């Protein structure tokens, strides 16, 4: 069976996750069906429990009421223009854009329940960059790493696998509860 570029990218990223071990089949197999996930899985993300961990600057200033602001809690690792300013929502692409099937992932603290959630940062792709103003251009960097750790970097245009790799805006979907 030949491999699609997406399969190969998933494998590569999986190799990175697994420390170049052979565990790559594990996540690669999980990769394709996120859109159907209805209940939050508990993910094995290393993070001290929220109650006793010191908070990052972002976490101390985060709010949970206005998703069009850079300090909305899910954007702790978001880099780019918020889709919620562009006709979309915090996890919704504006009309005519397409969510990237691949994303990078962060963990953010919800100030309402003081729990840490796993956030999938998916770019919306295939349209010119959204023209929203400067207040919607965010640069969250909590636990963000350089490009040689590509699955953890937010400077990369995460539009792999889309019909067009042009960046339109950034979303943040809550996909799990950090353990």
């Amino acid at each position, binding site marked *: 069976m030949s491999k699609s570029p997406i399969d190969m990218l998933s494998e590569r990223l999986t190799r990175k*996750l697994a420390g170049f071990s052979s565990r790559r089949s594990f996540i690669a197999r*999980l990769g394709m069906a996120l859109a159907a996930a209805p209940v939050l899985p508990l993910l094995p993300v*290393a993070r001290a429990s929220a109650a006793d961990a010191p908070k990052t600057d972002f976490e101390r200033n985060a709010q949970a009421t206005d998703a069009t602001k850079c300090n909305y809690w899910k954007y702790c690792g978001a880099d780019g223009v918020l889709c919620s300013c562009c*006709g979309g929502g915090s996890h*919704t692409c504006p*009309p005519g854009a397409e969510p990237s099937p691949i994303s*990078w*992932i962060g963990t953010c603290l919800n100030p309402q329940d003081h729990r840490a959630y796993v956030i999938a940062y998916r770019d919306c792709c295939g349209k010119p960059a959204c*023209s929203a103003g400067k207040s919607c251009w965010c640069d969250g960097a909590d636990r963000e790493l350089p490009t040689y750790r590509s699955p*953890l970097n937010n400077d990369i245009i995460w539009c792999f696998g889309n019909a067009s790799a042009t960046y339109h805006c950034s979303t943040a979907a809550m996909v799990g509860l950090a353990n």
Partner: protein
Amino acid sequence: MLRAALNNALVLTSLASTSLLGLPCLAAGVTAEVSDVATLTPNTPHRFFTGGFREPGFIIFDGDSGKMEGSIPAGYIANLAIAPDNSQFYVAETYWAHGARGKRDDMVTIYDAKTLNLVKEIMLPGRALVSRKQNFDINAAGSRAYVYIMLPVASVVWVDLKKQSVGGTVEIPGCAQVFPWGEQGFSSLCGDGSLASVTVPASGPAKVTHTKPFFDANSDPIFDDGFVDRATGKAIFFSYTGLVYEAKLGPESTISAPWSIQKAAGYAAAGTGVQELAWRPGGAQLAAFHKASGKLFVLMHPGNFWTHKHGGTEVWVLDTKTHALVSRFPLRAVPSSGLGDDAIPYYMNIGVSQDAKPLLYLLNDQGNDVVMDATTGEQLRKIEFAAGNNISVPGY
């Protein structure tokens, strides 16, 4: 090491993953968020669209909230038209394959109004590159689009929007702009002071008639931005000095004698003196027309002749049925950038919604863009992020 790596790692996860991972589902009932795509709600009367020379698309705003609702991609110096049934958007645009170089493609691009997905690129034989004018429009039935092109001669390409293909090209030497009427016709303004009216049958030669010259294109030209009610053919044109011409467009168009905006306001009619101070129309998209009421909204400023590109310091509201001034709305002057010497950064563009409680939209190039009540002149809100030199509204 794996645990550390998973701290903020890329994970493509799914419901299935919980069992594969052998981890418990949350009983709390919190559900994972799905990455989805919004659809655009149907056009409302208070929706408006802005675009411009440097903008990579037309931004869709809700005039009641000032919020962006989405955007329609667009290429070089693009024009927008809205299907009369609000089902589609049409963009006349030009691309070069490698930015400013490479293969040039001129096209009318069709977008679905709900998904904003691309429906079709209809390739054109050419396209005039002119900052926003009445040089792209569709007829009232939504069956045809008309595109003004300049090379090799002034012409109009008509596009069959049902077949999604170019129907043909008609030469209109010495004329420009497209004011559609009927199923098969459009009119254009001409440099000899006449109006050309063109009937383009689905097949066979086009028929072109000209009115007698009714204005002097050298001394008091009519602005490119007239208004036509595409369903009735009733049209409004206005000149640099502020004369308003009413026309009935059709195979044999007729023009009424003009009246003066300034006389309607109790002033003398303005002349063409380069040191003749008067209230004068000026700007880029310098007027807007409310079809149902017949009200014309014009950006006006005090100035001499040849200040027809100066922005407005007031909006004058004129009743085209009675030829009377209804209101004058003062506009707040916009601070200049402080860098230049020109006096232009007043409001350059105006649009009006077409409903019974109309809103006015005002743009300038400094970002101080506002929504006003078109009846009272009250400034209702700032428009977030709006820029460009182009306002479109549904229902016009």
